[in-house]
């Protein structure tokens, strides 16, 4: 594609993104906001692909637009009226709970505050753009990207993004799995899962019966291919979770998660647990934490990613269920 065509595409994408973002944020109805947000995520996927970030594009499609969208849609679906209610109304219920502090919700109604904050945001936008243009036009040294490619051979994988995620900056990824675990434990502490959906009719069942195996196959492929091409544990885990979400929507019970509490705990913990175990094993072998021997690195990374995929998928499905699984079987609502 020549430069003019590319420019045309860029302008089109940017305009679509900006107007979708604006429409998402200014929609008066929460449901409309959610749908626009999903559309925004899908267009964003194109932009990432255009900027040569296919790993991110995959993740955005599966997690950013896909699962976040499903979570948000489920939230408006189950509380259509309340989800729309403002925080101001909610705090109104707490009139007996006397708060000495000035409530920011009261302030928000004032026009002056609205305008001050808007002007502040405009100013911030200018400052951001100014600083960013300064940064982009200054000739920054490319040392980090160079040292990534210089060390790629020792990392055990040939996809540089996977190398950064699971080798050079593996510690970030370990903590990120801990973040996922924290979120799901917080969700467990808060509530039980929602009641299920109606059992699906024949058409939907037909779709499910070939879509779910296809998604599982695709997850396995994404996991394996992540070593040398776009893909990896997060995209694969999100794809598996999507299969779970579809099963859930079709009214299937248990959606592939174990019923026993201790098996479920193992599935949730295995991602961060195995990662940590590999790291500590290196320590026991007299190497630094998470310093894989180059000959083993490829296998260890695949092992870690497989465990991570399982935990990620389980976490995302449980987030969609909205709480710890009930002991009783689902009754449809």
């Amino acid at each position: 594609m020549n430069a003019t065509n590319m420019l045309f595409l860029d302008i089109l994408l940017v305009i679509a993104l900006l107007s979708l973002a604006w429409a998402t944020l200014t929609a008066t109805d929460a449901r409309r906001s959610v749908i626009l947000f999903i559309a925004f995520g899908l267009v964003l996927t194109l932009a990432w692909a255009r900027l040569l970030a296919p790993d991110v594009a995959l993740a955005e499609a599966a997690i950013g637009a896909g699962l976040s969208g499903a979570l948000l849609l489920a939230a408006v679906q189950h509380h259509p009226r309340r989800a729309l209610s403002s925080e101001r109304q909610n705090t109104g219920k707490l009139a007996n709970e006397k708060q000495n502090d000035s409530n920011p919700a009261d302030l928000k109604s004032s026009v002056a505050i609205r305008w001050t904050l808007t002007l502040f945001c405009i100013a911030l936008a200018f400052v951001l753009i100014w600083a960013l243009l300064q940064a982009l036009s200054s000739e920054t040294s490319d040392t980090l990207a160079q040292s990534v490619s210089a060390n790629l051979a020792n990392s055990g994988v040939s996809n540089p993004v996977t190398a950064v995620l699971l080798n050079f900056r593996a510690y970030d990824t370990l903590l990120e799995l801990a973040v996922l675990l924290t979120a799901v434990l917080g969700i467990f502490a808060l509530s039980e899962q929602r009641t299920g959906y109606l059992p699906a009719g024949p058409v939907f069942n037909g779709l499910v019966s070939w879509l779910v195996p296809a998604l599982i196959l695709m997850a396995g492929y994404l996991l394996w291919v992540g070593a040398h091409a776009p893909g990896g544990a997060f995209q694969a885990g999100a794809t598996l979770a999507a299969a779970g979400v579809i099963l859930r929507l079709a009214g299937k019970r248990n959606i592939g998660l174990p019923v026993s509490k201790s098996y479920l705990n193992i599935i949730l913990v295995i991602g961060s647990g195995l990662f940590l175990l590999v790291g500590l094993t290196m320590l026991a072998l007299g190497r630094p934490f998470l310093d894989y021997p180059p000959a083993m690195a490829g296998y260890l990374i695949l092992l870690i990613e497989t465990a991570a995929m399982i935990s990620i998928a389980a976490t995302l499905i449980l987030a969609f269920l909205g709480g710890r699984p009930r002991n009783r079987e689902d009754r449809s609502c």
Partner: protein
Amino acid sequence: MLTAHWLYGLSGCLIMTFGLRAVLLNDSLLQRIIALNVMGTGVFMILITIAYRGPDAAPDPIPHALVLTGIVVAVSATALALTLIRRLTEEQDND
């Protein structure tokens, strides 16, 4: 500096500030959470833009990895926030 840097960098900044404004001013809890996600997307866009090195050069993989981490962290936080909202509305219905 490439044209793509201009276009996408600028829109990243704008999307982030749009999001910030909505986080500060929107009344609906759900829409605030969406706004936080949009704001995050703006930041991710800036990161992906600075990773871009032109159509023929390999992009810097580090920002890509950072954005992947950021996306997962964002979905975790969104899930927790949505469950909190749900639990809150249940409690209020019980009151």
